[in-house]
């Protein structure tokens, strides 16, 4: 019997020959990702840090992204504590305010690579399965212990094989695929599992795979994984990483999966997740016309160049509806620069978009674009939980950048397809 990706990579990192799901192993990850939460994390272990130091200077990757620039004296002080820690312990991988969202940085800077094992004190650490890494979220205390010891335990998960068949239709995107799947299997449908995506994945760029893997945690998954192929290799060489710098781990064809699911992509339509659960998914046609007050394109789910390209193609020469605001949140400085060079930022600003600094922005409700009671936001983020954008009496709807951009023009939920409701003239597809 062959092995799944999770079984293979966890065997490699635990030094075991062969593993089966359910076993508990001790692993030493290649990197530990933390962000603004690094300050409370190091405060937990101050005496130990003093006595034993950190496990390794190259293990932590620290990115300031969640509440940036600081919104209060308290957050400013948190940032300061982290900068001092980085200096004192000579942390090698530190990205201060302005670099972008931690998950984007991990991939863009080549820190997450095929066949690597990465843990992070953020639930969307599962994103790096997009390029064939095993990555998963842990809590702050565990991250603190990892800073000291470099190791932790993991249970070898059951694996689910999802085969994506055929091709997406125009106007339907990777975001619709992952929302459709979550709507199908529910927010706990992959609890504790490793989710592997197979089938016709060639059609998805690394950016699109990122969107899908990012939302693995929204179906409960421990990690999400795309096999490494030419698309991955091409992306990595575009950021200066030759194949000699990584070794991919691929699951065997005869591996044993706890569940096998098939999705025919050619019948998937643009969808929207309604408040207040990510699995409350409806076809966009069922909610067309619903009035929206704020639009957000960005976050670690959909804040990359290809997302803004789609938005710009839709918004070119148009204006967002006068009664609404459109927030644009690039996931990194690099994405911002690339979008500037392509003239995308001009188009979005001219259409009425407001550009926010690369980071998490309004995604977690701490600042920048907090909602008022009874307001609705249509967002490309990954979560629509009650209170997520700072107000428990507001509503968050999740959709693709195409749906958000098309809807912003009308101030109402709009089908982004050509000939879609409210949108007869959309010629871009």
């Amino acid at each position: 019997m062959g092995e799944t990706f999770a079984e293979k990579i966890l065997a490699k990192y635990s030094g075991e020959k062969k593993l089966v799901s359910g076993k508990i192993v001790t692993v030493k990850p290649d990197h530990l990702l933390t962000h603004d939460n690094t300050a409370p994390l190091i405060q937990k272990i101050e005496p130990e840090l003093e006595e034993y130091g950190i496990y390794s200077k190259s293990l932590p990757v620290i990115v300031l992204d969640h509440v940036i620039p600081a919104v209060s004296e308290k957050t400013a002080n948190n940032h300061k504590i982290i900068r001092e820690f980085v200096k004192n312990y000579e942390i090698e991988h530190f990205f201060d305010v302005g670099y972008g969202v931690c998950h984007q940085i991990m991939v863009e800077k080549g820190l997450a690579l095929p066949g690597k094992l990465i843990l992070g004190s953020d639930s969307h650490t599962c994103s790096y399965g997009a390029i064939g890494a095993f990555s998963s979220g842990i809590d702050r205390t565990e991250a603190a212990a990892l800073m000291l010891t470099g190791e932790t335990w993991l249970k070898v998960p059951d694996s689910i094989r999802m085969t994506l068949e055929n091709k997406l239709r125009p106007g339907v995107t990777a975001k619709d695929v992952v929302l459709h799947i979550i709507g199908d299997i529910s927010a706990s449908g992959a609890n504790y599992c490793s989710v592997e995506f197979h089938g016709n994945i060639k059609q998805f760029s690394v950016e699109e795979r990122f969107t899908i893997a990012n939302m693995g945690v929204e179906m409960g998954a421990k990690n999400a994984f795309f096999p490494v192929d030419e698309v991955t290799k091409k992306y990595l060489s575009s950021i200066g990483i030759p194949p000699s710098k990584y070794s991919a781990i691929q699951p065997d064809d005869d591996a044993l999966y706890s569940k096998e699911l098939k999705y025919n992509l050619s019948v998937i339509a643009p969808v929207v997740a309604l408040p207040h659960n990510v699995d409350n998914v409806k076809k966009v046609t069922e909610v067309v016309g619903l009035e929206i007050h704020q639009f957000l394109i960005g976050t670690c789910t959909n804040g990359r160049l290809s997302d803004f390209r789609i938005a710009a193609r839709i918004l070119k020469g148009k204006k967002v509806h006068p009664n609404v605001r459109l927030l644009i949140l690039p996931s990194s400085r690099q994405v911002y620069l690339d979008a500037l060079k392509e003239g995308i930022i001009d188009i979005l600003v001219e259409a009425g978009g407001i550009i926010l600094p690369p980071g998490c922005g309004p995604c977690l409700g701490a600042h920048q674009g907090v909602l008022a009671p009874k307001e609705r936001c249509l967002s490309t983020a990954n979560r629509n939980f009650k209170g997520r954008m700072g107000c428990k009496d507001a509503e968050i709807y999740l959709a693709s950048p195409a749906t958000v951009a098309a809807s912003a023009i009308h101030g109402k939920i709009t089908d982004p397809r050509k000939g879609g409701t409210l949108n007869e003239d959309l010629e871009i597809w």
Partner: protein
Amino acid sequence: MKIWKYGDNIDTDMLFPGKYVYDCNTPEEIIPHLLEDLDSSFAKNVKEGDIILAGKNFGCGSSREQPVIGFKAVGIAAVVAESFARIFYRASINQGLLLIECPDAVKAYSKGDNVSVDIENGKIIIGGKAFSFPSLPGEILAIRDAGGLLSYTRKKLKKNSG
């Protein structure tokens, strides 16, 4: 002792709103905001020894240990749910909070039932009926029994250096 009963998919924003994540870290700062957007009576009325009962996927969403720290600090005896989201599950082990995954027990509960937990024998008794739950693997119990991951790690570091 009171039972606090909630439904499915109680997410981390309901347990502890994201807007406070970078302002509140100590138990004193956390407690007033526990379950703020879900049940405003919880923080005011919760007492030591109370039990939380919930449906599927309790704790889904962010990596957010404030609710776990808060539950521990107010003295929640156990959280019993049909299932837990994995990061919340790990966070609870790491803080030494008792989680019990037992769908039958949750389904059997009706308002007013007495609930008690017998950890030694892996049993939860609801309205006079006993339900067993599986014990945790040794590696994980060792962390919980040490009082959480940090004290476990301290011991390990001491041993290695001593």
